């Protein structure tokens, strides 16, 4: 048994790869929304258009919430806590999942 083998350790790992993927989707939606706003032009305060714009923003922010939730899930999915210890098979394996019930609101000031 080498001295390295004889060590005992507790490992924590995080990975935000899935969050990146979700953020890319959100960005696409965001660009589309901005395009829509530009097409609507300034000065037009037609209620239905404003409502439509708000709905898009809410949709984006809901996706953002999903991205954050997926990041939390990634903690669990990527095996964030594992035991690597020689001859200690009984020590076990733990995972943790963040329990974050976040609400995302949008604030459509200006625009």
């Amino acid at each position, binding site marked *: *048994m*080498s*001295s*390295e*083998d*004889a*060590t*005992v*350790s*507790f*490992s*924590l*790992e*995080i*990975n*935000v*790869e899935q*969050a*990146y993927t979700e*953020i890319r989707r*959100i*960005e696409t939606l*965001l660009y589309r929304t*901005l395009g829509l706003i530009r097409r609507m032009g300034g000065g037009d305060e037609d209620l239905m258009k404003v409502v439509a714009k708000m709905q898009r*923003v809410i949709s*984006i*922010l809901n996706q*953002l*919430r999903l*991205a*954050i939730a997926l*990041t*939390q899930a990634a*903690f669990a999915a990527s095996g*964030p*806590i594992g035991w690597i*210890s*020689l*001859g*200690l098979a*009984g*020590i*076990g394996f*733990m995972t*943790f*999942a*963040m*329990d*974050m*019930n*976040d*609400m*995302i*609101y*949008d*604030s*459509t*000031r*200006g*625009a």
Partner: protein
Amino acid sequence: MTAIKMDWGKGTIKQDVAEIPNKLLEGAEEAILQIAYLVLGLGQVHVRVDTGSLRDSGRIERGGRGKLWREVKVRFGGYIVNPKTGRLVDYAAVIESRYPYLKPAVQEVRPEMDEIIRRLCLAQVASLASVTV
């Protein structure tokens, strides 16, 4: 329940959305490091001591400096020479199996882990100009 509010009027929403994964990674890294220090400290409290070599061999190792992931390890063993044997500490796993010190440390910190990660991730996201938590 935590509210995350994004201010559309700030004009930085595009940059902020793009920055969110980095902020989450920063927050999560800070969190696992904080957790690791707690586990290390408690492990050093729980471990049986003769020469103190095993206790002193406890340390934190950082790895996984890739773009999207980080790794932090709390390790006991090696690193320190035991004055009685003249060898590096080579009995960390044996002592853990007989008189657990690392496992109880993890179990003690376990209830706090989720909250530490949640708090530090949110703090990082909240640092973005258009985001209020």
